[in-house]
């Protein structure tokens, strides 16, 4: 039984989606920063995909140099504020904190990071300067974290930067696809606005790039192109009845929720199919939207789930039920979803087999498919000589982020198949340096 009431107002929505990592106050930051040991060659830094000098910024917070702390953070990660909130710190920096070895609570690095960047953004402290104009132009496709990071880095080196974005907001999944109890739209957008004010890159919204002609135009107009296109819509499982009214993709569901908030109608019974972090988010969100019963269904065992343990725990704590070793066979209902027919699965000689003799139906009004996002394969076909790997990811040089077509660079989900915001932020930054080196060689 879910513990959440259906939210009927913005305030109730906020209450149901209360932030998991609230902002630290001054006293909390003072004590927490005092605990950092300033480890040599610190494990937290090694664990951070962007290698932020964490002991340094924590010491800077403690010595009341909050602006300097933010500089340290942004110097390594252009989306330092968003990452402080949405990073799975428990498996990254915080998980690496040496205190864990003595059962002392690890330093809350993400929240300290946010404490600094949030103050700096709110005070609109100018930390960065545009580099002297070098007369060269970079086009960026996609204003997700990879694209934003690439733009910021390129601007500091004096490039003119235009970002082409299909939607009406920047940061991609950070604003559209992350659970609202992790980060709010306002938090995401104010960081981009802060960066844009200082670095002056252009974002052209409602400007999807999806034709060969457009790409040719970009190739004509720009010296280099960065692809930060992310992934596409939720991939279909080709199930019988998947086209019924009431079947939605998880990414689409979360996006709608983030934009409509309490105005989104979530029915009483919901089934979420999948075992990744997106499935956990979608299930948790359905429960927080007041669904009476939310069932998470994963085809393999609990241990095999792709989701982090803490994400699963979060969903369970929101009142979500889970079913393991079940695979959907078909969606049942008369035009409209009435349930999902599952078959049990079992491991036979290391392979997952479906047992069609053990079939049952779970009744529901909404099915959320969290079964992975489709790759942008048809878009990649439009670019000459663009090498794609066997999982439809763009192949890049892992230092320069250059693709097989030298004019194109890429980063983020498009090259890793779907990872964290922090990975995309790193890729974008490095790609800008890759572009710079290539154009100046």
């Amino acid at each position, binding site marked *: 039984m879910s513990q959440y009431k259906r939210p009927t107002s913005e305030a109730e929505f906020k209450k149901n989606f209360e932030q998991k990592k609230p902002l630290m*106050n*001054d*006293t909390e930051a*003072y004590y927490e920063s*005092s*605990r950092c040991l*300033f480890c*040599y060659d610190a494990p937290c830094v090694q664990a951070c995909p962007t290698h932020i*000098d964490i002991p*340094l910024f924590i*010491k*800077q917070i403690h*010595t*009341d*140099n909050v*602006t*300097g702390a933010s*500089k*340290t953070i942004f110097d390594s990660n252009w989306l330092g504020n968003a990452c402080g909130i949405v990073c799975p710190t428990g498996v990254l920096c915080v998980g690496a904190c040496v205190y864990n070895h003595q059962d002392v609570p690890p330093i809350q690095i993400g929240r300290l990071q946010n404490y600094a960047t949030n103050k700096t953004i709110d005070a609109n402290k100018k930390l960065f300067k545009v580099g002297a104009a070098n007369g060269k132009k970079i086009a960026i496709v996609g204003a997700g974290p990879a694209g934003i990071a690439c733009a910021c880095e390129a601007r500091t080196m004096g490039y003119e930067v235009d970002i082409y974005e299909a939607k009406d907001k920047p940061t991609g999944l950070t604003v559209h696809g992350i659970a609202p109890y992790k980060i709010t739209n306002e938090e995401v957008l104010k960081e981009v606005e802060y960066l844009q004010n200082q670095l002056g890159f252009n974002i052209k919204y409602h400007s999807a790039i999806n034709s060969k002609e457009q790409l040719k135009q970009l190739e004509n107009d720009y010296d280099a192109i960065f692809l930060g296109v992310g992934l596409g819509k939720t991939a279909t499982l080709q199930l019988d009845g998947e086209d019924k009214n009431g079947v939605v993709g998880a990414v689409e569901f979360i996006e709608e929720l983030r934009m409509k908030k309490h105005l989104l109608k979530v029915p009483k019974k919901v089934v979420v199919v999948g075992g990744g972090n997106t499935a956990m988010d979608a299930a948790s969100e359905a429960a927080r939207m007041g669904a009476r019963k939310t069932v998470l269904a994963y085809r393999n065992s609990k241990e095999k789930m792709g989701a982090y343990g803490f994400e699963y725990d979060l969903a369970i704590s929101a009142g979500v039920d889970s079913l393991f070793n079940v695979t959907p066979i078909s969606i049942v209902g008369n035009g409209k979803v009435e349930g999902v027919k599952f078959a049990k699965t079992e491991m036979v000689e290391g392979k997952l087999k479906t047992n069609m003799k053990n079939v049952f139906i779970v009744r529901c009004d909404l099915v959320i498919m969290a079964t992975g996002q489709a790759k942008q394969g048809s878009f990649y076909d439009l670019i000459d000589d663009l090498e794609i790997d066997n999982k439809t990811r763009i192949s890049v040089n892992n230092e320069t982020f250059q693709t097989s077509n030298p004019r194109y660079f890429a980063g983020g989900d498009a090259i890793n198949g779907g990872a964290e915001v922090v990975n995309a932020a790193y890729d974008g930054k490095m790609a800008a340096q890759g572009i710079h080196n290539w154009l100046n060689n």
Partner: protein
Amino acid sequence: MIDLSINFAGIKAPNPFWLASAPPTNSGYQVMKAFEAGWGGAVWKTLGVPVVNVSSRYGSIDYRNTKMMGFNNIELITDRPLADNLREIEEVKKYFPDHAVIASLMVESRAEWEQIIKDVENAGADGIELNFGCPHGMCERGMGSAVGQEPDVLKTIVGWVKDAANIPVITKLSPNISHIIDPGLAAVEGGTDAISLINTIKSIVGIDLDSYAPYPIVDGKGSNGGYCGPAVKPIALHMLKDLAQHTEISKVPISGIGGIETWRDVVEFILLGATSVQVCTAVMHYGFGIVREMEAGLRQFMEEKGYNTIYDFAGKALPNVTEWKHLNLKHKVIAEINEDKCIGCDLCYIACDDGAHQAISLPNDANNRIPSIIEENCVGCNLCSLVCPVENCITMVKKDDGKEHITWNERTLNDDVPTTFNDDRAGGKGHFVPKPADALKHKS
């Protein structure tokens, strides 16, 4: 454009962050590693006739969860042959010609001083620092702080050194003296080009409760050590101030030493007149990387205040450090408690009631622990705000209108100060104090 480079008595360095003469500057390996990490200069571990050291050399004081708040050592000067040190100094200068390498020296006779000065000059040292401060071991042999405590001897040796040296000479002073002006002035009169201070303070950091020996324990016994680390900073700042405010002494530059760990410490030393800073304990605790925080913070401070070099603000606090008799007796602050922030620990209440002026009261309500200030009793002493564990919860608020200004000095000149034991002009006359027997009401 911020430029951190300095010219300290003719010794040039890319920044004011120097390593003090101590274990971190024992070898060329360490000094080069430090320069790579961002240090601008290093004062080599004191050279002289090499010593023999003991095993177990350091002790420290932890305060709550803070390790090494205070640190002491009984290690002596270098135990490596002079030739090895000279060769490494030469090598370091080859790799880092623009960084400052200063040779700390400690020998006895004039002939030894003349010889070792020639040697370090030939090795390429940019300057010399005279170790007149070491308060353990070496002083028993008539060197180190034994010299720093005898201004006349100090002046004579500085004279010898100045006669022999062609490179700038820094005299490092011992704090183990009641009046720092005396050795400071003696150094200047002897002709020193600069002064550095403080060296370590004579100390015993603790006694082992099983073996009854002081730390660090050497086979059941111990000796006094030299105390340093964050705990000594206030002593260092005060001695620095004394020298920097002195008309004659302040003609030479001063290198500040003593408990420096963060950018704030660095700025404080500079504000009191230091134009280079030397660090040891923080490096012994955290490694050379600690300089990152110092440099980033110093730059941030200078950028926000609009300074281009450290000389733009060096000594800027000196005019504000004055004698007590020149403080404004009409200035009045009282404490204010932010009830929204208060967490009800009531440390301010008990600190004020037991340790100060009985100016905080608790509500007569078992469910409410928020204390309040009794304004008419509050003397503005700060104690409550100092003990309060919550940031910006207790603040001291100015209550006077700033129009009146009178100092003890002025009142003395006006014959308006208490002169008899029961003078009506006593500052505390009429000030509320609870009746002695009220104390017994607390007994339950």
